[in-house]
């Protein structure tokens, strides 16, 4: 009963958003249909496709290289390739324009070096859909990298050896054998990337691209039509939901991953000098674009800014961000654990469906989710708590609720894939040995899922540190997080002042990433 109740509470804001579909449809729909809807949909599809293809290749190829070959910098890339996860897409977008605009720092630098006139711009314009594709791909590819790497590590060595003996080249082994086998896992990671791309507003708005999400906000904030905006958001959710079901079905049919733990650890192939250089470059580029470049630009901005940032307020703000991240990380991972545990023993129940629905929360644009949250919290406040006072709205409690909804998909995917490795025979043995029900969860599953649980917590933490729109509207008075401080400057495009809190977001986002990468380094098998 407990998992069911929890799910109902957490799904409520999503239901509130979806309920708009049963409301009235205003005349604005005719306008949207006649003039902009086609643009919104086609540019969104283009964006998603571009990001998917790029992320899929960056994520799987880098994972393949670091798991199978020994080359210069391998042990460094193994963990550093996930660093871009600490950069929110909107911050990469801001640094991109700061660098590559006609008067951006990169163009200025080149002009100064080669003494060119001010009318020369070396770098192409990034304020378009291609720029957006690059921004999302290079900040989000680690989701695919993480799952692909652990899937590659679990691949049979003997299978690859046979393939090589049968005459497949290295590239052949990758494309014809290994990639098809890890496809289900990689697509699971890709789903997260797609959902995050769909829910983003900051980056696409900065590049002034008309996507479905910017359309939602235009309808709400410009046409003052929240109802239609919620309906648009619901359609987006339904599309994601449909995609989710399709993906799930294809994954169920294609359960390739083997649970046989007798695989010998892979002997890495040592690469020759020339090949080693190529491997180095292929791994370096994503790290450079997704992490080194933006960090360098942010540090440069921070030095240009005259105001000092490290003060009492900064410490308080960082403390807020860190504690919110830890609490919501643990809560969300715990929720995902309980839900997945229940599903394991009663598969195909309504809990399973609700869990998928809750995962869709990741694709809800933060502000729309916030509107659903406010309505839910006020409802609870007025009907179940003190009716003369507002207690839940504008409380940390409400904020945590929003984070859990927003990040459940991250925790769920990690716990879920962890559970896939626990065979049902283990459950049977533990039952025979007297561990049943919650006892089994505590004594058998939890120890086995330790790594998955930690991964889930850490992924949620790194997301919460970056979260902005829901935080802005749901937070208590005078409660600032680092993302909020950054936004306050970035909204006015005062990037010099925004740089310091942005660096802090990255630094704090690095804490969970640091632990994640430590896990990568210490264990060859990521649960």
């Amino acid at each position: 009963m407990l998992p069911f109740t929890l799910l109902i509470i957490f799904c409520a804001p999503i239901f509130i958003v979806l309920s708009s579909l049963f409301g009235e449809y205003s005349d604005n729909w005719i306008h949207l249909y006649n003039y902009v809807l086609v643009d919104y949909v086609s540019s969104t599809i283009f964006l998603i496709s571009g990001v998917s293809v790029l992320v899929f290749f960056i994520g799987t190829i880098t994972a393949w290289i670091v798991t199978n070959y020994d080359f210069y910098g391998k042990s460094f890339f193994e963990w550093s390739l996930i660093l871009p996860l600490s950069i929110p897409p909107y911050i990469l977008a801001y640094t991109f324009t700061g660098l590559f605009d006609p008067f951006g720092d990169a163009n200025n630098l080149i002009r100064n070096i080669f003494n060119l006139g001010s009318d020369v711009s070396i770098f192409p314009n990034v304020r378009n859909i291609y720029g957006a594709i690059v921004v999302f791909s290079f900040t989000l590819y680690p989701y695919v990298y993480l799952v692909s790497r652990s899937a590659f590590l679990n691949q049979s060595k003997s299978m690859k050896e046979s393939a090589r003996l049968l005459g497949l080249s290295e590239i052949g082994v990758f494309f014809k054998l290994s990639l098809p086998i890890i496809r289900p896992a990689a697509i699971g990671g890709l789903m997260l990337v797609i959902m995050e791309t769909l829910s983003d507003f900051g980056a696409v708005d900065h590049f002034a691209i008309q996507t479905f999400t910017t359309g939602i906000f235009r309808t709400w904030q410009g046409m003052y039509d929240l109802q239609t905006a919620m309906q648009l958001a619901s359609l987006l959710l339904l599309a994601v939901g449909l995609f989710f079901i399709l993906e799930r079905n294809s994954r169920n049919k294609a359960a390739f991953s083997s649970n046989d733990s007798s695989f010998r650890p892979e002997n890495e192939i040592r690469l020759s000098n020339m090949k080693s250089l190529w491997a180095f470059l292929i791994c370096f580029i994503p790290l450079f674009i997704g992490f080194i470049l933006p960090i360098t630009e942010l540090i440069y901005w921070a030095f240009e800014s005259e105001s000092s940032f490290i003060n009492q307020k900064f410490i308080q703000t960082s403390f807020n961000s860190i504690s919110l991240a830890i609490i919501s990380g643990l809560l969300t991972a715990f929720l995902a654990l309980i839900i997945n545990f229940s599903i394991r023993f009663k598969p195909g129940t309504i809990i399973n469906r609700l869990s998928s629905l809750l995962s869709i929360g990741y694709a809800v644009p933060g502000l729309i989710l916030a509107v659903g949250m406010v309505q839910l919290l006020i409802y609870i406040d007025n009907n179940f708590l003190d009716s003369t006072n507002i207690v839940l709205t504008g409380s940390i409690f409400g904020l945590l609720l929003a984070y859990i909804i927003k990040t459940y998909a991250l925790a769920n995917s990690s716990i879920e894939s962890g559970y896939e490795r626990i065979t049902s025979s283990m459950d049977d043995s533990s039952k025979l040995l007297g561990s049943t029900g919650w006892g089994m969860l505590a004594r058998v599953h939890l120890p086995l899922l330790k790594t998955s649980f930690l991964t889930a917590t850490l992924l949620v933490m790194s997301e919460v540190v970056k979260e902005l729109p829901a935080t802005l509207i749901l937070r208590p008075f005078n409660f600032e997080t680092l993302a909020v401080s950054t936004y306050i400057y970035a909204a006015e495009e005062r990037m010099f002042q925004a740089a310091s809190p942005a660096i802090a977001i990255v630094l704090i986002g690095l804490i969970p990433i640091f632990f994640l990468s430590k896990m990568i380094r210490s264990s060859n098998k990521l649960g």
Partner: protein
Amino acid sequence: MAFMRKILYLLLVSFLSEIIFADNVNVYTSRHYDSDDALYEEFTKETGIKVNIISGKGSALLERIKSEGKNSPADIFFTVDAGNLWKVQKEGLFQSIKSEKILSSVPAELRGPNDEWTAVAKRARVIFYNPMKIRSSEIKGLTYEDLANEEWRNRIVIRSSSNMYNQSLVASLIANLGEENAEIWAKNLVKNFARKPQGNDRSQIIAVSNGEADLAIANSYYIGIMLSGSAGKEQQEAAKNVKIHFPNQNDRGVHINISGAGILKSSPNPVNANLFLEFLLSKRVQKYMVDKSYEYPIVKGVLPSSEISSFGLNFKEDNTAVRQFGELNPKAIRLMDRSGWK
């Protein structure tokens, strides 16, 4: 278990929002300038009243106020968008401002129809040009309407139609020319764009400065920020190349938008809220504010910052539209969609 329950209860209680009893004023604001924080501290120092802030997008704050209803802790709604002020006013959530100090120092056209809100600072949406490239005969007497003329084909930059300042500008044109004429205007203006709308107001000014375009439509205060050097040397240099033209000086005047605030009907601390507004509209605070934000002051006898003053102070302002922006905003957006203004 009982112990655990107690701990959980304590945790839960500590998560609930602090219920505010002391001397406070609670401000929901979509205006987040660093300099405003210093002002709030000054207010607390003078009056002993603590200023509690939630900042966010105006539209989202509005939803929160609406949902919170009569129990809302909000005293003041402060926004940079006249449209949102109008929305709150239309929903009947504001109370009228009674303070003689405010009513006597703020002109009627910069307040709500029944004094539901008052402007706190204003900005003009002006035309930037490079005097080395544009002859003074070309720019003299130029109006917003003229920007649609064929002679400006591929020469104008402006940001996207998602920007609220563009929406207000188009709303003001609908108010003055009628919807049909405004649409013809917008369609022709789009033909005159030098590039697909992109970037912020400053990017438009930079585009004019480096010769990518001849005219830019942007808000007045951006040039102040750029000239001050707080945005870097490149922007400071770029800003020195451009001049401001105030359009429509021979008829209705340049388009003005406001930052404004009002006191909510449900305000738990209306007296403090009133003091807070009076504070914002005192001469001393107005001067401090516009020196930092490069906006124009509302109160007479206060000068804008030196950077902004250097572009001239005796210009005519369009005072017909401020109240109508909100009402016409949805029309303006649909019109821009129809005319292909991305």
